[in-house]
């Protein structure tokens, strides 16, 4: 064990000194025994610090951590500083509200969790050792931690999807696509097509007007992401605000890292994890997230939720080009890979295959790939040899492709002088699409105003356009935030230092201490107080067993009407004290607001019922048992 740093000790002292007097002395008296007056608070703090800095004390405190403690601590470890309410609300499905309130308070009494401005953090003196006691399970269920090789929305899938879209020129899913994606269920495939259609449409990676077209430049940026980053982007993209997207990216990145370790979990545990990470990243929890994760294949449901293995660096193998013009590979292509642009997907699986056909090659050329680029690509990536017949087929198709060129632009017919200007002016060159013949130029439509200006400034009188028919020019759809979204999605993987499962000895109370309490000469109140603190794991060494009452009466029930009233009155207005009320058919945890009396002198407790703080008036006579709980140690 590494020695405690000065920094840790100082942090401990600072936190402790922020506690209210009542709580401070409650803790001090418990751990240091009788405190003689006059006292010097800094001295007391140092004593407490020294007390908890002893390795045997630390060992004892940590040895008393049981499974419920461990779950709470693991929650704090994953979620970062959490308020008591957060912890209770997240774990409410596992235990009753009352039990959780008591345990969270107890962890503070045991100085394992300390209050830091409303949030609970690990005691800086044992922080490292507490971390070592945390694990993902049983917090997140008991399922096996083995990842599945299920199908998910990988970059290879998106690549294949874009290929299908480019070929079919339609967004709607067709049943026959399932044979192209055999590892995906038809239901998942249908949902993925819909999800990607919407997402990529919003980001203008695809545009669907009369025909669907793919913006391959944007696609390349998207496909340059790792599978994990792509999934994060797809989860985050639907959030409308930039801040939310960033939160969603952080959320999904951490989620995937945790799922990678957890392997599987039940629905309740998964929901807990999603809520916890939402809380941590500031994202508003939305239950539809589970559907998105399932559609994307991050998780698949089969009795339990199983996390799928997300490939990080499965680089594409060399291309195997067979005589039937099938090009196959395993792994994941780099973002700049162009195969999917000039071929047709035949199967996406362990080994992915595309087939090159004259039609697919033509589509590649239409998408601005050049024959040289395709040729070089095939030559550089083929194994064992470049297919000569494929190259020949492509060369012939290319020759045929070149037989006609369709330009879109404005035809400019000029006199010799203007021709000279056009050909010699440096600034004009970017605006000329093609020189059709000596005095006929095809000019860019998109920069018409610019080149008109240049011509005017060069002394040319530029007339209006002569049109035979009206031309409809549509602006290319774009989403200016796409690039930023891709950039911010490039998050490194989150390192998860928390183990999945830990084998621990069960927590056992030190019975020698109990014996010491039993044998010590004490008043009834002192004994009861010590017994209660012993059970609450606050008595660690014999020096703490002294004749004093630290807590006073904390419980009254049965016919002790006055005792119950007294406890209620005592708790009024104290934010760190809650009352546990046992009523005929329910148990309530309340904060006492007021004790009033009826005309018949019957005591009524006005209390805010936690956690919703709904105000109720409860006759004290209806309460079987009142127990005082130290709620927040602040």
């Amino acid at each position, binding site marked *: 064990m590494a020695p405690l740093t000065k920094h840790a000790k100082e942090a401990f002292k600072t936190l402790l000194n922020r506690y209210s007097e009542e709580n401070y002395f409650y803790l001090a008296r418990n751990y240091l025994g009788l405190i003689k007056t006059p006292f010097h608070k800094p001295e007391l703090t140092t004593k407490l610090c020294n007390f908890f800095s002893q390795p045997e004390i630390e060992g004892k405190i940590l040895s008393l951590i049981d499974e419920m403690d461990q779950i709470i601590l693991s929650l704090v470890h994953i979620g970062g500083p959490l308020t008591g309410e957060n912890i209770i609300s997240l774990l409410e499905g596992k235990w009753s509200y009352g039990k959780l309130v008591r345990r969270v308070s107890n962890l503070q009494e045991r100085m394992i969790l300390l209050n830091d401005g409303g949030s609970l953090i690990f005691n800086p003196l044992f922080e490292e050792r507490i971390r070592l006691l945390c694990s993902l399970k049983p917090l997140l269920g008991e399922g096996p931690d083995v990842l599945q090789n299920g199908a998910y929305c990988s970059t290879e899938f998106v690549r294949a999807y874009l290929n299908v879209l480019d070929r079919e020129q339609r967004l709607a899913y067709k049943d026959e696509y399932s044979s192209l994606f055999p590892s995906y269920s038809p239901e998942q495939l249908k949902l993925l097509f819909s999800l990607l259609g919407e997402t990529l449409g919003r980001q203008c990676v695809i545009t669907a007007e009369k025909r669907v077209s793919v913006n391959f430049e944007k696609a390349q940026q998207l496909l340059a992401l790792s599978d994990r980053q792509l999934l994060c982007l797809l989860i985050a993209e639907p959030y409308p605000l930039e801040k939310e997207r960033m939160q969603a990216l952080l959320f999904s990145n951490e989620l995937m890292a945790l799922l990678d370790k957890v392997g599987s979990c039940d629905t309740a545990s998964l929901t807990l994890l999603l809520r916890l990470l939402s809380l941590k990243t500031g994202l508003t929890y939305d239950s539809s997230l589970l559907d998105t994760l399932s559609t994307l294949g991050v998780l698949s449901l089969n009795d339990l939720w199983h996390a799928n293995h997300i490939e990080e660096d499965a680089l594409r193998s060399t291309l195997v080009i067979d005589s039937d013009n099938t090009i196959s590979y*395993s792994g994941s292509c780099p973002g700049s890979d162009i195969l999917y642009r000039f071929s047709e997907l035949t199967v996406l699986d362990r080994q992915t295959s595309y087939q090159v056909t*004259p039609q697919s090659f033509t589509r590649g050329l239409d998408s601005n790939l050049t024959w040289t680029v395709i040729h070089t690509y095939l030559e550089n990536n083929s194994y064992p040899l470049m297919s000569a017949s494929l190259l*020949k087929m492509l060369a012939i198709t290319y020759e045929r492709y070149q037989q006609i060129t369709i330009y879109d632009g404005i035809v400019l017919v000029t006199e010799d002088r203007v021709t000279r200007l056009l050909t010699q002016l440096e600034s004009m060159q970017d605006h000329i699409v093609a020189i059709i013949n000596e005095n006929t130029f095809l000019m860019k439509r998109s920069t018409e105003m610019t080149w008109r200006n240049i011509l005017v400034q060069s002394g040319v009188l530029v007339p209006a356009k002569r049109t035979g028919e009206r031309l409809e020019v549509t602006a290319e759809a774009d989403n200016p935030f796409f690039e930023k979204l891709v950039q911010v999605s490039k998050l490194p993987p989150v390192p998860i230092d928390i183990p999945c499962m830990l084998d621990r000895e069960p927590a056992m109370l030190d019975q020698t201490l109990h014996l010491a309490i039993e044998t010590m000469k004490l008043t009834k109140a002192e004994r009861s107080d010590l017994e209660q603190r012993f059970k609450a794991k606050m008595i660690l060494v014999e020096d703490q067993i002294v004749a004093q009452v630290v807590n006073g009466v904390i419980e009254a029930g049965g016919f002790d009407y006055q005792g119950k009233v007294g406890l209620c009155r005592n708790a009024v207005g104290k934010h760190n004290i809650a009352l546990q009320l046992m009523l005929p058919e329910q148990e309530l945890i309340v904060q006492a607001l007021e004790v009033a009396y009826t005309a018949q002198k019957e005591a009524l407790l006005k209390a805010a019922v936690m956690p919703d703080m709904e105000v109720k008036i409860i006759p004290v006579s209806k309460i079987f048992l009142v127990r005082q709980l130290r709620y927040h140690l602040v």
Partner: protein
Amino acid sequence: MRDKPLIVQSDRTMLLDVHHQDSEACRSDLVKFCELIKSPEHVHTYSLSAISLWNAASSGVNSEFITERIQFWSRFPVSESVLFYVNDITSRFGKVVLSASEDPMYYMLTIESARIKAEMAARKNIAKMLVPNDEQSFLIEKYHRGEIKLQLIKLGYPVDDRIPLEKGISVPMALREKTQGGYKFGVRAYQRQAAQALLGDLGPGCGYGTIVLPCGSGKTVVGMQIMSLLQTKTLIVTTNIAAVHQWRDEILDKTNLKREQIGEYTGESKNPKEVTVCTYQVLTYRPDKEGPFPHLELLTKGEWGLIIYDEVHMLPAPVFKVTAELQAVYRVGLTATLVREDGREDEVFSLVGPKRFDIPWNELQQQGFIAEAFCHEIRVDLPTEMEIPYAVGNKREKFRMASENPLKLDVVKALVARHPDDFILIIGQYISQLEIIASLFDLPIITGSTPNTKREELYRLFKEGEINILVVSKVANFAIDLPDASVAIQVSGTFGSRSEEAQRLGRILRPKDRASFFYSIVTRYSNEEEFAANRQKFLAEQGYSYEIEVWPH
């Protein structure tokens, strides 16, 4: 990722890296329970199907062996769904058992569970064949043996047929060690393996099936090997009279059967003997469209111990039906290209029998058992004056115009000149086109209307080297053995028929001391290019690649 040769896909196809050091060992395991789908140069595709698994199960290969072997050879972890499929499908085998019954008119169908029994009874087309027997079984009439198996396979419950096939009338015969022509003769290892794969131990589940071997690799010899092992009365059904005669001549040349033991049953002669060779045509002949098929009785009433369906992919529909009734007979389907454009390959498997043996074409080529062949697609322009008529024609007219492109004649001439010492077949679809070629270059021609005697005479002259160029129509697509042919020039074809293309290539694949050349002349910028691409698919999947040549004006 492990250093293994196999990639198991989710759709249950298996990709074998043929360049891997262990690919042969892996292949020898795969063939026990998979079907070879395609075998181009680098990656061969096998597939796990219900039929292949049940076939494996009927040969005693269990699911434990299959899953263990798949996992052993797989480069990546095998998907659970694939393993589940293997276990699920193989577990269905043996749930329905066909065995002899006390009543000689019937067989007994024993069903393992009441659920399956109820499912069967609920299907009208199955229920009509079932005669209730006891709680666990039905009786079925003997002639329903094939049909019930076919229907139950469709239902997903393969029948474990435990009735041994009937031996048939004995016909002693043996293969010669020296052919009648005086050449040394021996059955090649793969031919022996193919026969063995079909016959097994002659017990239940053996003795019927399909053997797929490349053209020119000696399927006839496999047939004769099976005949010599069974020594029984045999019917051979083939595609045309020339093929009938070829079978007869081969049997005489390579077995000790005598001429008088071999009969011919064709349009010309109906003389069944201990070994009879007939055509599909004669079996399916009927005088009027609605009437019965008078010669089908040859199949059903001939008391055959073995039926060989040559070029089984050609099996016509009426023969399908009769074949279903001939389940007690040893039977073998022989083919090089089990691709049917009508998609009825599965029915061939169900009725004749599953694929028992298949071997990649390029493997036999590498071993020298079939000739090395170079395929060329020569693209030739349409004459300028035909461009407009072509542009305005309908799809059929376009194809016809492209197929009969007169500029192809120049190419034929040049190709013939390119191969002065070769034996050349000029093959086409359109008789008028072939007649022009024949008359232009003064070449003999064989079409459907050429009398059989004339055909035989021309084949003989070609085989004996007296003529070295023969113009042939689609009558020569199948089953014609012209051992010395080394060049085929295809001037036109039946649209996108993959099997036709492969069979035409097959005419020049007999091993010889020179390489073979297959030229397909296609009109550039026409729909013939698309059809040609489709035609070439089967061969491309067997590892053949076409070199495209653009013919200069």
